[in-house]
């Protein structure tokens, strides 16, 4: 691997607690993510990993704690504000716009880069037209990068699962995010597709310098890709360290093997 270019802390999570009614989903979680690194969050099912991403993203609002992103501290924000600050995301259950084509889905990712108002759009001349073409070029670069030219006009609802995941990644990339949150990007893929996805993630980090936080269950992938790993279980933080240390951490091993804890 090339020299890792890891900078300062870009995201800081402080004492986040989240409950739904009486169910405590996240209990006093704190960690940070550095610019340019690949950070993984792992843990058994139901540990609260997706919820953590949802909090960073603005979908869930924590009862306690705060998030500092690029120097701005806030307790909660709306998802579209998070998007405008440079956070992009994919979902476990694929949140693509099923009624639109691959190209259109990726173009929607460019939404925040496009500014022309209703009037010019209605006429589709001048600034609206130029903007549309510029952003089409940007979208095509991503299509190239992800090697999905052949399906660009197909409605995404008709694509196989693995390709849908790739398109979703494309849409997230289209926003040129500073922080990319990936929720189980390799779930349900065979080993060939997993290799492809791994390669894409590494390339994104290498070429664009994007900071990546991902949730993943495949330990091999996690240990290979990540700079640091956060381990959650039942909403509690078990470990937060480099992959080698986490691999040998007894508490983590117990959690995965199901040793009951008090």
């Amino acid at each position, binding site marked *: 691997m090339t020299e890792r270019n890891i900078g300062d802390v870009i995201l800081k999570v402080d004492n986040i607690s989240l409950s739904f009614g009486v169910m405590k989903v996240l209990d006093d979680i704190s960690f940070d993510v550095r610019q340019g690194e690949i950070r993984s969050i792992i843990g058994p099912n139901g540990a609260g990993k997706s919820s953590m991403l949802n909090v960073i993203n603005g979908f869930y609002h924590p009862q306690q704690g705060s998030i500092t992103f690029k120097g701005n501290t806030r307790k909660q924000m709306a998802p579209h504000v998070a998007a405008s600050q440079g956070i992009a995301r994919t979902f476990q259950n694929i949140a*693509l716009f099923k009624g639109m084509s691959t190209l259109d889905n990726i173009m*929607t990712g460019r939404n*925040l880069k496009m500014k022309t108002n209703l009037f010019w*759009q209605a*006429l589709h001349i001048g600034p609206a037209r130029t903007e549309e073409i510029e952003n089409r070029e940007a979208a095509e670069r991503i299509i190239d990068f992800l090697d999905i030219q052949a399906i660009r006009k197909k409605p995404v609802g008709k694509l196989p699962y693995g390709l849908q995941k790739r398109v979703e990644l494309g849409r997230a990339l289209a926003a040129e995010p500073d922080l990319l949150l990936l929720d189980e990007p390799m779930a349900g893929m065979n080993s060939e597709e997993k290799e492809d996805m791994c390669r894409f993630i590494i390339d994104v980090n290498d070429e664009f310098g994007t900071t990546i936080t991902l949730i993943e269950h495949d330990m091999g992938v996690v240990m290979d890709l990540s700079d640091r790993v956060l381990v959650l279980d039942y909403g509690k933080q078990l470990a937060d360290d480099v992959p080698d240390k986490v691999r040998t951490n007894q508490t983590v091993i117990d959690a995965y093997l199901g040793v009951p804890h008090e």
Partner: protein
Amino acid sequence: MIYRETGQFKSSYESDQALFPIKQDRYVILGVLIVTFGVVPGLLNEYWLNAILLPFLIYALAALGLNILTGYCGQVSLGTGGFMAVGAFSVYKLMIAFPELGFIPLVLLSGVITAAVGALFGLPSLRIKGFYLAVATLAAQFFLIWLFNKVGWFFNYNASGMINSPPMTVFGVIITGPEGDMTGKYYLVATFVALFALVAKNLARGRIGRNWMAIRDMDIAAELIGVRPLIAKLSAFAVSSFYIGMAGALYFAVWLGSAEPTEAFDINQSFLVLFMIIIGGLGSVLGSFLGAGFMVLMPILLKNIMVDGFGTDAALAAHIEIITVGVLIIGFLIVEPHGLARLWRIAKEKIRLWPFPH
């Protein structure tokens, strides 16, 4: 063989994004435009104009509007009749108060007023969705009709509650009211509809259209890409109401010449336009036209077949017509819920492959 796309390579994004990228489509549209503006005016007569052409065009405009809201943005609305009424009454008051502004600006203005009203009634869409939103729009429908029936200011305290269109001219030709010139009316309405169909197509293929469709497909995910649901939904309501308001204005001033709120703009009107976009095809400009044409022509055809053809009694024929509409709606929903536009696309696919079966 006829409809082959091979050999038509696009060498720039611009040409790929053109309105009609396939050459054959361009010829068809050119043909349609020539017929619409060149051939039909020569064949006009009162019956064709008033029974078929004007309602078709005006309803197509309303259908375009509703399609923007429901087809592209996924917000169901049963308030179309009420919003058409807003357009009609706005243009009426404007024609009386500011006749010097000219008819076309007044129609546009009435569209703007309806857009504002539409955005207001669209506010609930931020908290409620789907079927429940449809109920909220029903509130708009009933309230607006009551308003125009009850509040005298809207119909200038006229004893009958009706509004009559004063004659206004465009480029020297009388358009509105009963003395309106046939050809003038036709050209005005046809031009309006053609222009705004183009606008609708432009909006749909641009950023705003994509944002609307994102809201329709998964509004939670739309927030992810920075779409503000409030802005997107309200803009859909506003643009949609703009179209529907203008359709209402033209409906009253150019086609009917006079109107009474409960008859002209009641809930049946809302259902009618909704049927048009469902049968025609949700989220499709072509579908709006096909649906409007279908729902305007069908009752006429039925009546001609039954009353003139079989000599059926008029009342009975009316009942049979109602049954047929119902059966057709159900039939379409079962067979092709994506409407005539989808059927058209399938037909084009077949033509493309002809004479090969697949």
